[in-house]
């Protein structure tokens, strides 16, 4: 980095940074400490908070709520990450060319990333409706017995994952397209001169050079899918029988339905720990991406 200019007055940098630092302190760092502190109390927002030590954590663990939220979120994330990446990469490879048709398909797929989660959730709530939904009608029309995509506890989470893939596949496609355009054409020409076929060029040129992008997209979508909330809130409210109660929804439920702020704060602390680990993975991936450039 360039050494930069000397400030005219010693206090200039601090003044310029003051608004940023005040907002960071009040809305980011204080809340984090506050959550850690509140997690040691039994508090319903209305009456006096009561100190309970690590009781909230113990209760979350022993009731199985913590492991349920974790495993639900993890299963959801794994399906979303693998699905959206495979789709995004495939589309990027097929659409990495000029022309109006390719631009049209890219725009169609990316449009879902631009509209709100609420729009997407309502759209699919209607398409997947067990009585009158379009998909239900299609399945029935094909002579098969439709399933209750959102009402079946074994299926609902994966239906939400499918909807999420539909929403974010365009994002991974755009990142993969950017990655593909960084690969020098000369490498493909050299490989073609050596007589390498389509598959050979993919495995020996594209895949290894795309690897840093792949790792980056994987960790980004993992973090995003770990924070899933909107589709759950609009489409299933955590049900049926808790089968879609992901981490953030569990926190929301504890605060706004059960009024257990201490319990919710304990969940927040654990959730932050998980995100921390995932983000550190992302930073490592980022370093590799930079190093590969």
């Amino acid at each position, binding site marked *: 980095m360039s050494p930069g200019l*000397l400030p005219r007055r010693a206090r200039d*940098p601090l003044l*310029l940074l003051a608004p*940023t630092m005040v907002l960071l302190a009040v809305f980011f760092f204080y809340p984090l400490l506050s959550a850690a502190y509140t997690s040691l109390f039994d508090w319903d*927002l209305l009456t006096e908070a009561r100190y309970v030590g690590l009781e909230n954590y113990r209760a979350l663990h022993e009731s199985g709520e913590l492991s349920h939220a974790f495993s639900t979120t993890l299963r959801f994330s794994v399906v979303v990450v693998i699905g959206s990446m495979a789709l995004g990469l495939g589309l990027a490879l097929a659409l990495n060319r000029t022309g109006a048709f390719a631009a049209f398909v890219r725009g169609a797929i990316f449009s879902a990333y631009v509209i709100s989660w*609420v729009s997407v959730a*309502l*759209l699919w709530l*209607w398409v997947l409706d067990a009585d009158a939904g379009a998909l239900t009608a299609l399945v029935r029309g094909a002579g098969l017995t439709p399933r209750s995509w959102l009402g079946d506890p074994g299926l609902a989470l994966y239906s939400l994952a499918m909807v999420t893939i539909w929403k974010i596949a365009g994002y991974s496609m755009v990142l993969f397209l950017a990655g593909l355009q960084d690969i020098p054409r000369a490498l493909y020409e050299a490989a073609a001169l050596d007589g390498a076929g389509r598959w050979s060029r993919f495995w020996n040129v594209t895949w290894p050079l795309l690897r840093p992008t792949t790792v980056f997209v994987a960790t980004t979508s993992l973090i995003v899918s770990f924070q899933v909330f909107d589709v759950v809130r609009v489409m299933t409210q955590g049900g049926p029988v808790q089968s879609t109660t992901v981490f953030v929804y569990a926190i929301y439920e504890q605060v706004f339905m059960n009024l257990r702020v201490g319990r919710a704060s304990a969940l927040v602390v654990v959730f*932050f720990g998980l995100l921390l680990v995932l983000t550190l993975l992302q930073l490592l991936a980022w370093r590799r991406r930079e190093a590969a450039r």
Partner: protein
Amino acid sequence: MTRRSLSPFAVNVVLLGIALLWLLPYAWMVSTSLKTLPEIVKAPTAPLPAGLNLSAYSDVMRAMPIGHYFWNTTVMALAIAVLQIAVALPAGYALAKLRFRWRSLAFILVVATLLIPAQVRFVPVFTLLADVSLINTMTALVLPFGVSAFGTFLIRQALLSVPDSLIEAARLDGASELRIVYGLLAPILKPTLVAFFLFSFVYHWNDYFWPLVMTTDEAVRTLPLGIALLREQGTGVRWHVVMAGNVALSAPALLVFALTQRHLLRAVSSKAL
């Protein structure tokens, strides 16, 4: 699969099919929104409405003050995007161009906030704002997003490639630091600022989570929240009304996307840089 390349025609047919997987749900939404209640009850999956019937849209307008929600949402998203840029410009300038003792630490603090998303902050920020009676206010919707780590980072990176001599010349002319930041550097960074503005505006315009937890009052309710409520108010099979609301919610975003596709795609792929 053969080693020969696939026929371009076959590839295009598959791609068209995939594009339809994205476009047909939109068409289905619009088609449903033009139906009437008897049509929905009798033949919910009929592909086309009997006619251009806008009664579902007037039902939406009767069910909620949609213009008011639209206004709230736009004011909120605009205030957040403008505040983020106004706060990030001087910070990005200090981090990119000035030499001072705590620069690395300040930069790390900014980037570290990427670790603390809204889903982690909402419980403590809710209790904090409740303590000062700010729940159900525009302040509760805007101020917690006043600083954007992504925006600060983006502006800092863009400023690194602006030559120091430009700033030195402005100093010789007697320009104050604020004048240098907002008067000299902001116009130079215009492409970056436009891309970031679009990204931030669309993101917050679409946001559901934060307004949901910070407001219960209709006076500050935003559009995504209001439209989602259409589904919750025991609407039963009134899908034509829900879809009419959904058209109102998604059409502006799709329009902005159609008009600014290039800028927006750049903002998204620069997020990964």
